């Protein structure tokens, strides 16, 4: 990954969204910034986004959430700290989307009084995954607790 933003050549199947790979989330940001695992290829990263858009796995803000499974349907670690779900903030109209792995639990990231970002999917996202039969009921319970699958 170079130091510049690159745009993936494919668009998503459902919404024809374009997707950008950002240096910040590929090792170019601060050490505290979430990073995609080096084993996750660009195509894999796009597939996570495409899955999120295809199933419309979104929260109230319109942010999308995706994941990657192997051939046995096992959740894979997509982040450098074992994260298994990626978050894609809603992009501006006609702008490419971008995303990053998110932690299963809210991080301690500074003084307690400081407001921090949620950095974890809303539980309604897990319900959507269940409704669309992407996860099983026990898997939803584990995700709700912040466990890894």
């Amino acid at each position, binding site marked *: 990954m170079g130091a510049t933003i690159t745009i993936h050549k494919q668009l998503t199947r459902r919404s024809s969204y374009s997707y950008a790979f950002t240096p910040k989330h590929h090792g170019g940001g601060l050490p505290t910034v979430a990073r995609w695992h080096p084993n996750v290829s660009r195509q894999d990263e796009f597939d996570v986004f495409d899955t999120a858009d295809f199933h419309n796995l979104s929260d109230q803000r319109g942010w999308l959430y995706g994941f990657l499974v192997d051939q046995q349907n*096992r*959740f894979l670690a997509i982040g450098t*700290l*074992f994260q298994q779900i990626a978050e894609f903030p809603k992009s501006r109209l006609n702008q490419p989307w971008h995303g990053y792995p998110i*932690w*299963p*639990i*809210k*991080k*301690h*990231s500074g*003084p*307690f009084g400081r407001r*921090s970002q949620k950095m*974890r999917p809303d*539980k309604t996202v897990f319900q959507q995954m269940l409704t669309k039969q992407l996860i*099983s*009921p*026990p*898997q939803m*319970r*584990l995700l*709700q*607790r*912040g*466990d*890894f*699958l």
Partner: protein
Amino acid sequence: MKFKESDFDHILDGATIKNDDFEISYACELPDCPLLALGSTDGRVCFLDSLSAGFPDRVNASESKEAINGIAMAQYQIIASTRQEITFLRPPSHGQPAAKAECPFGSHGLFTASSGVVVGPLGDSGVLFAMPTDKEEITITIRRIKELDLYFYRGIPLPSALQGDFANIAFAVRTHGIAIMHLGSEREYLRRLTFSQSDIIDICTFRSVSMNPLIIAVSRDCHIFAFNLESNNPKPLTAFFPSITGTAYKVLTVNGHVIILTSVSLFIVFDLAMIFAGSNRSKSNRLIKIRKVEGDIFDVGVFLDMLFLIDVDGISFLKLSDLEVDFEEDVSIVKEANDFNIYSDVQDYEATRELIVYS
């Protein structure tokens, strides 16, 4: 409950409690008192002191209404964790009203160390230590190891040899193996065991009267490891069973058996802890009895003389004496693990301290 009929037949004197408006997300036996603590998917906690009593009053223990993933009791206070926050609940006492204090970050569960300090594994943020008080505030300490990115996932208390030890605890730290953290009055250290290519998901201890305590761990791909806690040069043993399939979520020991919960099923491996610990250890292949318990089970634990199984419909109890039925046999190779490393990472702890206030 979604057991096969054949499994259900063997829940003899056990009980089943179905979810009503309290959807169970977590349960644990609280040490030193015969209480089963239960957490719900919407952040409430209650206690069961006998199976026929049903659920008594339910306490809201999560402002965010997230699913409870850990419950501890210390200094007569209830502490509950979710992926969003850790909440300290102080009951009314000596004319003081009930009070609550909250840490605004999530934890992968909670437990109490031998000193009574509450410990929470915070992932890559480190480990939380807190001693609840009857004062206005609690000091929260978060320890990280400088220049070592450990992911503290599941943790357990270990027996403490020395009076005055603050904490003797162990954690599954994923691809970094198992971390043993000792915080004592005389010395502090962190020792790690890593197993090549293994992603350690959960750990537990096994101790019998005549044996040194063992730590038993499971990797995500269902390899089981065991090593002697009190040895300065532990030679881990490892075992793998072709019939144990899926992604491992949890390991525990009961009556010398090892129980593995995976994405596929719950597996009871008879006598494996005894084999790991005991004199009848053999390096050759041997047949070991394994029972597979089907169902949508997502957590398991021990309460009194029963194994409890939590699934999406509620919680059920299986008498330990009834475990050894309907088993199959599988070939296991219990052998010494070759690809392991022991590190003494001592030392340079980075500690963050803050106060949270009861209100």
